[in-house]
């Protein structure tokens, strides 16, 4: 990804989570992968000031307790969280899920490839895209200085 902030994976299936972790390692993605197992846990992670905010969230939809769509409704209504791009990574190809997710401003909707090689390719494509795309970095002194330099220029 463009910066070295963590990627937050929200995934209840331990095999899928392991596959994402393996793909990150294989592709030498430097971003630490933080793993939460449902929407509720993901929100708790995001709302804890002690945790570094992720640069990108990879979100499964079908999860117990709080599913992906419910998570999106809450996260996208929260001014402190809604800027973080969320990429849905799911087995659901239901049109309802696709439309609901995009209406909630997801930055991608990818069906999990069954085959490991294709899974790695999907993670590579996600990484390349989010390395090229700018990412929202909340204001720090550096960001402010950069912003002022741009305004001056």
């Amino acid at each position, binding site marked *: 990804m463009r910066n070295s902030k963590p990627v937050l994976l929200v995934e209840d299936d331990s095999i899928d989570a392991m596959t994402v972790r393996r793909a990150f390692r294989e592709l030498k993605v430097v971003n630490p992968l933080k793993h939460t197992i449902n929407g509720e846990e993901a929100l708790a992670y995001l709302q804890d000031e002690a945790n570094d905010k992720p640069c990108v969230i990879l979100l499964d939809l079908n999860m117990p307790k709080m599913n992906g769509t419910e998570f999106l409704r809450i996260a996208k209504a929260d001014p402190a969280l809604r800027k973080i791009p969320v990429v849905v990574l799911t087995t659901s190809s239901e*049109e309802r899920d696709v439309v609901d997710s995009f209406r909630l401003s997801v*930055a991608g909707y990818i069906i999990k490839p069954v085959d490991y090689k294709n899974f790695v390719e999907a993670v590579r*494509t996600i990484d390349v895209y989010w390395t090229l795309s*700018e990412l*929202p*970095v909340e204001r720090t002194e550096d960001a402010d200085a950069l912003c002022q330099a741009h305004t001056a220029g």
Partner: protein
Amino acid sequence: MPCAKPILLVEDDPVDALEIRRALGDSHAAEVVIHASSAEEALAYLRCPADVRPALILLDLKLPGTDGFAFLKAIKADACLNDIPVVAMTGSRAVRDILASFDLGVAGYMVKSPDHSRLVEITRTIENYWNLNRLPTALAR
């Protein structure tokens, strides 16, 4: 894009528009690109029932009249249009523009380059990524 759905390019600068169209053509020859040179023109296109719905919108931010941010607000407030992903394609790398765009729900923020090969790399990356995506079909609405 799946089913060779069109891309709507919202770009007021004719040179930039030509360069982006060329880059899209070089990275994916079959692509259909609809060009709107203002946000007003883009909204009129999107709201005309006879027009083909784009799979993706590439949006310049600095536009005469309605700017890119106001366009994004209008799209996101429109229940018929708010499931179309919008990718910012702009000359601005200003932090406040990046933050404002993501706050309004862009699905990517690409900084334009005057260099053709760099621009081809950008459009190819956009296409590879969105080809992998499942996008809403017009039928589901």
